[in-house]
């Protein structure tokens, strides 16, 4: 039966090519824009580290002195060095690391000095974020304690400086000092770079990783937000009243999460007793997806574009509903003849829906092409996420589902009206 309806639908669509083209085009443009913006949204709001995102927690403590404390303010994102080092010493989580972004100038054996993006962190970073290594390994907690002159470099930097060979054991010249390379990363990039969103949210990962203690010894430049209160001669000093370090903890089981939360509350109570502040001192523990959500990692422009595209699709559908309705009702005579010859209302309804579905599928195919074109345009936009935008199989499927659903939806009302054509009246008026 369906094949008969398909045949009828194609004949009917062929009869008025301009109108058919108009309907297909309207659906295609609506689907194309919607899928372009939804794909961008899908990519940007994706989970950067799906296997561990529920176990990794960003730690926030509100340790502002009473003068700077405003009730109702959010808990700051970063920690002071004093608090971060205290938490790291206690090591109550399964894994934990404190970190900061930075830049350093490396002088290679040949050629011009390079200005590189760096991350200063502690030993657990690599295991905690499941960082893959091509050669060697990360440093250990002992290296953190000894302020060891070691570094881990990215695959790209290894290719650039050492032609891709195993460079572990080689030296990296940084500001007159030498750092021994202990590990080379495999290709690794987190998008969004969830562990520190303050220095560009999307793009490649850092090129050099150095123990935080070593970076402080060498006075390497840090970057990112630095929020201080009071007189601060040295923002990086151990007791400086400055918020600048990101702190992450890995908590694998619900019981450890509860225990860790309790531990943080106890820590804050101790600080209050020690006289640092008198306010309650909130804590905040957010897993990766909660953290990304709290930081609004999807740009507001992208959200706006999704709304706009959906509105656009709505208009295109209204357009299609109107055209289909006009088309079906104009065929009242034909429908009446079929009804008079014994076709049920259901059969008429199905026939109309099949015709709408054919229009929808054609619109979906054209829409997919338009979405592909749209994504090419998005990739050429001057945004830091432009290079990441790809259509994956799930979005491909979603395109067709959306196209088919919306065209069937558009066909519903016209088909309903068509099946209610009164055969006697329509036949008589002819």
């Amino acid at each position: 039966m369906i094949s008969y309806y398909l045949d009828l639908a194609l004949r009917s669509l062929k009869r008025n090519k301009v109108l058919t083209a108009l309907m297909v085009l309207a659906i295609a443009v609506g689907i194309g824009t919607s899928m372009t913006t939804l794909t961008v949204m899908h990519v940007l709001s994706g989970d950067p580290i799906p296997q561990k995102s529920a176990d990794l927690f960003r730690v926030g403590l509100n340790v502002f002195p009473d003068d700077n404390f405003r009730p109702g303010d959010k808990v700051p994102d970063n920690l002071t060095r004093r608090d971060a080092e205290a938490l790291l010493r206690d090591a109550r989580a399964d894994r934990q690391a404190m970190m900061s972004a930075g830049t350093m100038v490396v002088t290679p054996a040949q050629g011009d000095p390079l200005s590189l993006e760096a991350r200063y962190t502690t030993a657990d970073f690599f295991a905690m974020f499941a960082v893959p290594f091509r050669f060697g390994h990360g440093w250990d907690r002992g290296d953190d304690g000894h302020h060891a002159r070691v570094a881990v470099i990215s695959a790209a930097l290894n290719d650039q400086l050492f032609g891709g060979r195993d460079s572990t054991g080689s030296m990296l010249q940084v500001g007159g000092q030498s750092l021994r390379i202990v590990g080379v990363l495999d290709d690794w990039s987190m998008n969004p770079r969830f562990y520190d969103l303050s220095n560009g949210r999307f793009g490649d990962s850092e090129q050099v990783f150095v123990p935080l203690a070593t970076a402080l010894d060498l006075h390497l430049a840090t970057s990112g937000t630095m929020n201080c209160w009071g007189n601060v001669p040295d923002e990086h000093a151990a007791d400086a009243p400055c918020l600048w370090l990101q702190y992450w903890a890995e908590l694998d089981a619900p019981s450890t999460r509860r225990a860790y939360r309790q531990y943080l509350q106890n820590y804050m109570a101790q600080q209050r007793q020690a006289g640092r502040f008198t306010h309650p001192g909130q804590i905040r523990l957010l897993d990766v997806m909660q953290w990304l959500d709290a930081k609004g990692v999807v740009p507001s422009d992208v959200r706006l574009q999704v709304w706009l595209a959906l509105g656009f699709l709505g208009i295109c559908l209204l357009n299609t509903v109107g055209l289909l309705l006009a088309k079906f009702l104009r065929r009242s005579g034909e429908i009446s003849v079929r009804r008079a010859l014994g076709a049920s209302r259901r059969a008429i309804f199905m026939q109309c829906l099949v015709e709408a579905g054919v229009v929808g599928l054609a619109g979906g195919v054209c829409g997919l092409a338009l979405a592909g074109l749209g994504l090419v345009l998005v990739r050429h936009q001057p945004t830091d996420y432009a290079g990441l935008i790809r259509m994956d199989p799930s979005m491909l499927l979603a395109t067709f589902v959306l196209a088919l659903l919306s065209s069937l939806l558009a066909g519903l009302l016209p088909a309903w009206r068509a099946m209610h054509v009164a055969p006697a009246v329509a036949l008589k008026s002819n």
Partner: protein
Amino acid sequence: MDILPILATLRRHKVTATLLILQIALTCAIVCNAVFLITQRLHRMDMPSGVAEHELVHLRLADIGRRDDEKARTAEDLALLRQIPGVTEVASVNQVPFGNSSNNSGIKLDPKQSQSTLNMTTYFGENLAQAFGVQLVSGRMLQPDDYMDFDAVVHAAQAGDLKHLPSVIVITQALAERLWPGQSALGKQIYLGSEVPLRVVGVVRGLVRPSIWDDAMAQYTGILPVRVFDGNYILRTAPGERDRVLKAAIAALKKSDPHRVVIAQHIWDDMRSDFFRQDRAMAVLLVGVCIALLVVTALGIVGLGSFWVAQRRRQIGVRRALGATRANILHYFQTENFLLATIGIGLGMVLAYGINLFLMQHYELPRLPAIYFPVGAVALWLIGQVAVLGPALRAAAVPPVVATRSV
């Protein structure tokens, strides 16, 4: 033109007419808001900077690790840069307008206030105002003997030694007006943090801050008499000379020490276009969507209009046979479209207002100005009339003889 027969006909096509009205309403609502968003973006891209935009070259060198000789090195660099033919002013600064790193500070009008009055950005650098080409409105610019070295200031702040801290500041007109509305700012006192009193000695027309997070505060700027040595240089030259000066400057600096790394180099116009590139991209996208929307709606009107004409061929023929002129038929369809468009526009205005309220809540957008309503209405009326013209002309061409034929 008699409207009643048109209404009577429309009543027989309720569903189709409603669909067309809804489509026009949605288009009207979305296009009004999209055009408003476009003008907001264009307005933002026009944000005044207060500097001599077409005369500036910016250079930033990486800190290579040696920290002891930075003062001598900066003096040497500035001397080298000043010698380049065509360079009129040079300065070593801490930050640049529309750049992405910034120094900011809370300020107070009274040291006993518990919260800051507002947050302003602080520009440091000897000869900064002259190099940027900032315009003085009243008072005086900072003089060489006002200036102190950055490291000395840090030490003095640590020791609480007010004598060796800056005591004067130049601020922008916008900041002066915000702090002391309607009064002259000259001679007034502000407090940096809560300890450092600064007397306003000059007011400049404007100097935009780097990394703007709130457009309303874009011009809350102070220039402090502090010398900095961060390898962040501004050169001023004639507009046509900029590319040559930039090349010569890099060559001169590299010649003095081949190990130096230039992290950023641009003529200043590129910084502006870089800073607003997302606004521009969004504006282009919105223009594209508006055009597509209007085209889709116009095509919808053409499609439905053609159907109606085809459906009513016989009726038109009868009217023609009964004495209606071609013009009568043409006007009939034009008026019909006008009626539908008017209802759609009316509904669309309400919807536009609703969408605007939603945007105001979620995207910090201002209220839609009233002028958008009449302009939007006229635009949609025009589009409706243009779209219906084809089908209406076809209707007018139906010969009276059709009335005598059976279908």
